[in-house]
């Protein structure tokens, strides 16, 4: 499909030819992977590890839904159910969502967006991978060593009195937190110090901006979960009496500590998704993101305000009415920059040239689902309504719309967008689109009924329910199967691409960021064959005009489009 235009550029092919040495094949031993300090390889290692975590978390989710398909016992007893949903939450939050996009695409793409050879601290980068792996192993030990049934929130005093494998999990969260801190420090310094000549802050890709905001939150919030987990560990192990009310402690203090991290953590999970969506919408609309500065700075605003809203998880927990009111107000404020982003993404499509490839389908799917997630979030922020909705399925559905409909959908979009760059292979567009649609419909069938269940009063973390909730639960369970089918289709499609996929050109989508314009697919070990000097913005498609061709993207340019 690219034969016409490719010949036009073949003369300019630089010394590195496609199919010759690249970061994947220049050295192939297992040890070279395990000891690599190449940000691209570390990104790929994260991609594989995180996929396994997502698979484990997903299977647990399917078990939860299966149990809830009918009233009473369907496949397991209440204790088993409590452990399954707790592990689902812990695996998905701490081992998948928090690292997800920064660890995979941040590692692979960020240095290339900056025109750098690597992140600032490559060895620290590898260390954070292993620290993360250590945290993952501890979680799995907790899974096998005994039963963790405290939910992912570890609320005291339940967590300090229930089964002792909670100790494993608090340590796992502590260890995984270090990985998050190291990655955050690394990315902040990389963005400050490693930018290519000419890459001013105003030319930074929106993905880099969002990773920057995320990393700052990671650096500032994660230590607090660290100390919280240490205190919880000590509470459990030495009965220090800080959180346990039976020893004179205060359980509400635990909730303050926990949410001081865990609410900013929500932004650690969603901000990178915003960045990915900007990267998708621009090239597939062939327009610069409308309101670039607003979109970039709204990430920073969200990161900042994200620290001031933790109390909205505690409107009915016994904190003072005054603090509830203040937290509620700031919660609305944080909705504004988020709304600004959504409006700007839609405005970017106005008078654009919209190309409905798989990544764009995911981006549209994100806009649909995340808008529901955001608006339900505003409803939950309304004090009097939250009293009714708190700890019901409405909340469960809300955060799945944000976390899965937002982060996971964006991650899938990013995966399909960068896949040709990462692997050098194209995938079957038709199958990938079918998978995207299955995921979209499956997701809504799973989680929309939960919104109604919740506002009707169905509490979360329930093993059983009253008869009037039965039909909606059944619908939700059926939805989870469609969703799973969609995800397995993605897996099959990508595995097929690895084995049989067509070779990817350097810039299949006609994108204007450096990883597409200045590097081969897959890139050479040091990313660029020559140091890029940046002379235009990340969404300046005008400058690529003469390379558009083939079926509408930059397929005319199998080699990096570099000319002097």
């Amino acid at each position, binding site marked *: 499909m690219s034969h016409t235009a490719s010949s036009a550029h073949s003369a300019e092919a630089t010394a590195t030819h496609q199919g010759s040495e690249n970061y994947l094949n220049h050295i192939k031993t297992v040890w070279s992977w395990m000891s690599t300090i190449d940000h691209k390889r570390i990104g790929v290692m994260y991609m594989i590890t995180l996929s396994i975590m997502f698979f484990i978390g997903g299977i647990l989710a399917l078990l939860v839904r299966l149990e809830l398909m009918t009233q009473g016992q369907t496949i397991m007893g209440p204790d088993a159910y409590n452990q399954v949903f707790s592990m689902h939450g812990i695996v998905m939050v701490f081992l998948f969502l928090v690292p997800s996009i920064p660890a995979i695409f941040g590692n692979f793409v960020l240095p290339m967006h900056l025109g750098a050879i690597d992140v600032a601290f490559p060895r620290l980068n590898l260390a954070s991978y292993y620290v993360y792996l250590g945290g993952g192993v501890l979680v799995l030990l907790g899974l096998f060593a005994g039963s963790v049934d405290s939910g992912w929130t570890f609320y005291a005093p339940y967590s300090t009195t229930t089964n002792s494998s909670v100790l494993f999990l608090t340590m796992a969260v502590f260890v995984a937190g270090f990985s998050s801190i190291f990655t955050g420090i690394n990315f902040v310094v990389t963005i400050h110090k490693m930018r290519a000549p000419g890459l001013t802050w105003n030319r930074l890709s929106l993905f880099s901006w969002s990773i920057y905001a995320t990393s700052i939150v990671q650096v500032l919030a994660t230590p607090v979960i660290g100390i919280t987990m240490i205190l919880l560990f000590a509470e459990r192990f030495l009965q220090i009496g800080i959180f346990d009310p039976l020893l004179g402690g205060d359980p509400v203090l635990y909730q303050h500590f926990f949410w001081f991290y865990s609410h900013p953590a929500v932004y650690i999970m969603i901000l990178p998704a915003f960045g990915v969506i900007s990267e998708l919408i621009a090239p597939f609309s*062939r327009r610069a993101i409308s309101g670039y500065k607003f979109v970039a700075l709204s990430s920073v605003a969200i990161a900042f305000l994200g620290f001031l809203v933790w109390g909205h998880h505690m409107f009915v927990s016994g904190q003072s009415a005054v603090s509830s009111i203040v937290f509620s107000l700031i919660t609305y404020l944080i909705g504004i920059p988020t709304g600004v982003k959504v409006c700007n993404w839609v405005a970017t499509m106005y008078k654009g040239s*919209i190309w409905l490839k798989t990544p764009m389908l995911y981006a549209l799917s994100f806009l649909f689902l995340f808008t529901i997630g955001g608006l*339900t979030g*505003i409803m939950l922020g309304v004090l009097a309504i939250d*009293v*009714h909705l708190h700890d019901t399925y409405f909340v469960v559905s809300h955060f799945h719309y944000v976390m899965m409909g937002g982060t996971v959908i964006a991650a899938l979009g990013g995966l399909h967008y960068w896949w040709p760059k990462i692997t050098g292979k194209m995938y079957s567009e038709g199958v990938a689109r079918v998978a995207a649609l299955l995921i979209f419909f499956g997701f809504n069938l799973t989680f929309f009924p939960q919104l109604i269940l919740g506002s009707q009063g169905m509490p979360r973390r329930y*093993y059983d329910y009253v008869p009037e909730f039965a039909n909606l639960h059944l619908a939700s369970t059926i939805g989870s199967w469609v969703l799973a089918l969609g995800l397995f289709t993605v897996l099959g499609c990508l595995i097929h691409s690895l084995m049989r996929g067509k070779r990817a050109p350097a810039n299949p989508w006609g994108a204007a960021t450096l990883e597409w314009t200045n590097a081969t697919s897959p890139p050479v070990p040091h990313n660029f064959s020559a140091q890029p000097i940046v002379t235009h913005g990340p969404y300046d*498609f005008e400058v690529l005009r003469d390379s558009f061709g083939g079926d509408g993207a930059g397929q005319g340019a199998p080699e990096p489009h570099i000319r002097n």
Partner: protein
Amino acid sequence: MEPKGTLWLPPAESTLAPEIDSLFYFVYWISVIIFALVVIAMLIFVVKYRRRKADEMPPHVEENKLLELSWIVVPTILCLIVFTWGFQSFLRLGTAPPDSYEITVRAKKWLWEFEYPNGTRATNELRVPVGRNVRLVMSSEDVLHSFFVPAFRVKHDVMPNRYTAVWFNATSEGEQHIFCTEYCGTQHSGMLAKVIVLPQEEFTEWVESGGGKTDDLPLPEYGAMLYQQQACFTCHSIDGTQVIAPTFKGLYGSQRAFVDGGTATADDNYIRESILNPTAHVVQGFNPIMPASYSSLDERQVSALIEFIELQQ
């Protein structure tokens, strides 16, 4: 009674519920409109501006500062309206009128106990008079719980070593669900109770009789009533299913094997001991999780339960 609920909300059965519902639907419809605008704009653009030629370059569009400003200002104003409304209702929800009738609530794994000013007690059935402000003063004996009546739109966490409160004024007679909404372990989802809203006279009569006359009930019937009231059913089934504690079906007269290796026949004395001192002999395959609080049952109540268990064959 006709259910008056809507697609989104259960029937509104307290004086404050309609106010919260109108706030809910106000925010809901604004959200629907915003959502529709986003999705419709998105779909129109996808169709209208779809890529027709591979190498087309869309025209440059000047950014509209007014538009940019409008989607900052309009949502801010909407948010401030909703916030003000929300916190006023929240304050009303949080402040019980001074003339409220007070009932003490104790939560424990996994049941609710209600105690009335005259000492009348009930388990898992909260009887309240219709049309009267009722304030519940709540505390927990173990971990966190949360008291939630969807039909009244009230909820508050229940904590050990601290009192929290909710209040409501039920507008019509009938029964409503009480759920525990703070995760509390194995039978979290079984920690259900009912609010039974009674006419004032009927309520007064019930409270003054000390929770209904039981003296003239035959023992097996009284036992069946206690089985419900004391929430034995949360853990002990009578249909033979093993939940987290031995079923009552076929229990009486059977041979019991204990974790410490001993055995005994389940006769009157064994069952009596198991009620009053549950951890004395733990049956194999189960954990010692039964609370000690049943030791406060009086002699007649214990006898009634034993009679009841004997009948479950």
